[in-house]
């Protein structure tokens, strides 16, 4: 089996599993309890906070544990919106290809009277800092731009955007779910006020993540109740998950320098191989992208069929086709970078892990080539393209 869907989720690392087991079996106390077992759990929680903070260059008091990236996105945006509203500022700048955890929250805020500007991400899948600057108004309360896109892997110029926001005194949030543990980042250097991350994207467990909120940024609760997490997120802490997340992040972040060149080389090998398929195109900028992300469109075929046949060959990947999204429209990310519907339906995302070998990459190239050729052999669209009845787009 070749698992190439690490942007969807990752296998838990051994260190994370061990950390989780140890807490479940031995340190099962409630961190809010006064006796020794509870205080041990509290210590594990605070050690984890320290470890997470260190990785992103934050102070431990600036880390809030959540149930994952979506919750962190919701809380970050809701908090900035609440602060903005208090000051009479109800304009938010974001981009067209954010994760739905961001886009749907913004959509809700729009219904509550906020004005939302979604910036173009251009054909290369990169936000232009000068366009962020131009979009900022006197009533802008928040800019939220993802660190790296979850589908096409493009890494955004976060530092430049952060500088612009801070020059103007505007809060800056970044959904860094795909970036944390994969590329080096530092919230202070990047001028980030709010940052969301999710453990299962960096070999931690599902159902846990964190929100970084710069000291002084007042958070709004999504969950009311006890005084956990400094009163900003009620509910007994997911200590096993949090301990495992910290273990996974320490390991992932520690290996970035070592893994990046290897992963990038495999990625580029895969890109070169898939480019040999006629009428195909890489989605997103070739160099400003995550080291493990490859995303292609193939003309004349549909993504779900491609995925099912690749699965038969032992390759697990994903697609932005409508059929895989459960809606009639293909991926909003591919539409945002200007891919037309016909082409966006034929997309394939391969997100590589450190475990893949060159032989695996070559097997993927051969398999994708075979399946695309096969599906095209009875595609009426491909027939029209090849007979000249319709012009090729790619």
């Amino acid at each position, binding site marked *: 089996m070749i698992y190439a869907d690490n942007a969807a989720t990752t296998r838990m690392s051994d260190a994370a599993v061990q950390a989780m087991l140890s807490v479940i079996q031995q340190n099962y106390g409630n961190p809010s309890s006064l006796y020794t077992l509870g205080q041990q759990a509290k210590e594990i929680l605070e050690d984890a906070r320290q470890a997470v903070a260190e990785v992103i260059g934050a102070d431990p008091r600036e880390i809030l544990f959540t149930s994952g990236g979506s919750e962190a996105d919701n809380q970050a945006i809701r908090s900035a919106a609440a602060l903005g509203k208090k000051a009479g500022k109800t304009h938010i700048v974001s981009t067209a290809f954010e994760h739905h955890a961001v886009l749907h929250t913004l959509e809700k805020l729009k219904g509550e009277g906020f004005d939302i500007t979604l910036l173009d991400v251009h054909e290369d899948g990169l936000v232009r800092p000068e366009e962020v600057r131009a979009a900022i108004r006197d009533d802008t309360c928040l800019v939220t731009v993802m660190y790296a896109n979850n589908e096409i892997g493009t890494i955004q110029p976060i530092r430049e955007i952060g500088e612009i926001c801070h020059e103007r005194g505007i809060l800056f949030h970044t959904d860094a779910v795909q970036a944390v543990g994969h590329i080096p980042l530092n919230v202070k250097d990047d001028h980030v006020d709010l940052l969301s991350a999710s453990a299962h994207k960096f070999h931690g467990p599902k159902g846990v993540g964190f929100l970084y909120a710069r000291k002084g940024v007042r958070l709004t609760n999504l969950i009311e109740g006890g005084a956990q997490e400094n009163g900003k997120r009620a509910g007994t802490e997911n200590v096993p998950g949090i301990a495992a997340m910290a273990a996974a992040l320490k390991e992932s972040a520690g290996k970035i320098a070592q893994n990046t060149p290897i992963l990038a080389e495999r990625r580029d090998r895969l890109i070169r191989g898939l480019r040999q398929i006629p009428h195909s195109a890489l989605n997103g900028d070739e160099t400003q992208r995550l080291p493990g992300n490859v995303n292609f469109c193939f003309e004349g075929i549909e993504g779900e*069929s491609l995925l099912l046949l690749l699965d038969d060959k032992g390759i697990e990947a994903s697609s932005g*086709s409508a*059929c895989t999204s459960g809606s009639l429209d293909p991926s909003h990310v591919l539409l945002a970078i200007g891919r037309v519907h016909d082409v966006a339906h034929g997309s394939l995302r391969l997100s590589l892990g450190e475990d893949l070998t060159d032989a695996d990459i070559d097997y993927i190239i051969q398999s994708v080539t075979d399946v695309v050729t096969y599906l095209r052999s*009875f595609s*009426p669209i491909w027939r029209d393209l090849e007979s000249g009845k319709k012009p090729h787009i790619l």
Partner: protein
Amino acid sequence: MALYSEKVMEHFRNPRNVGVIEDANGIGEVGNAKCGDIMKMYLKIEDDVIQDVKFETFGCGSAIASSSMATELIKGKPVSEAMQLTNKAVAEALDGLPAYKMHCSVLAEEAIHAALEDYHNRTGK
């Protein structure tokens, strides 16, 4: 539970009647690339009986399986019988489709009907 029934996967992996009939006397194409599904049906009808049927499909697994099953259901059948083909029959023959994939069976029904209509228009019957 798997996304699709075994029957759907079997027809998807080994679709029946794939291809083109060069001297078809009934051709129907439905769907559009924007929505991600196109089906094209080719019929060879003699003496009001469907002697041969072939299809080409751009679409998801259930679209390909529905096309395949629809061709199996009408092959060798009189035109009058093929006219009665419903999407329900296609879906049932596939041991069911997920609710949000039912439109694939509808497309298969429509593609067959479009090809039959083309045949009627050509022959004036």
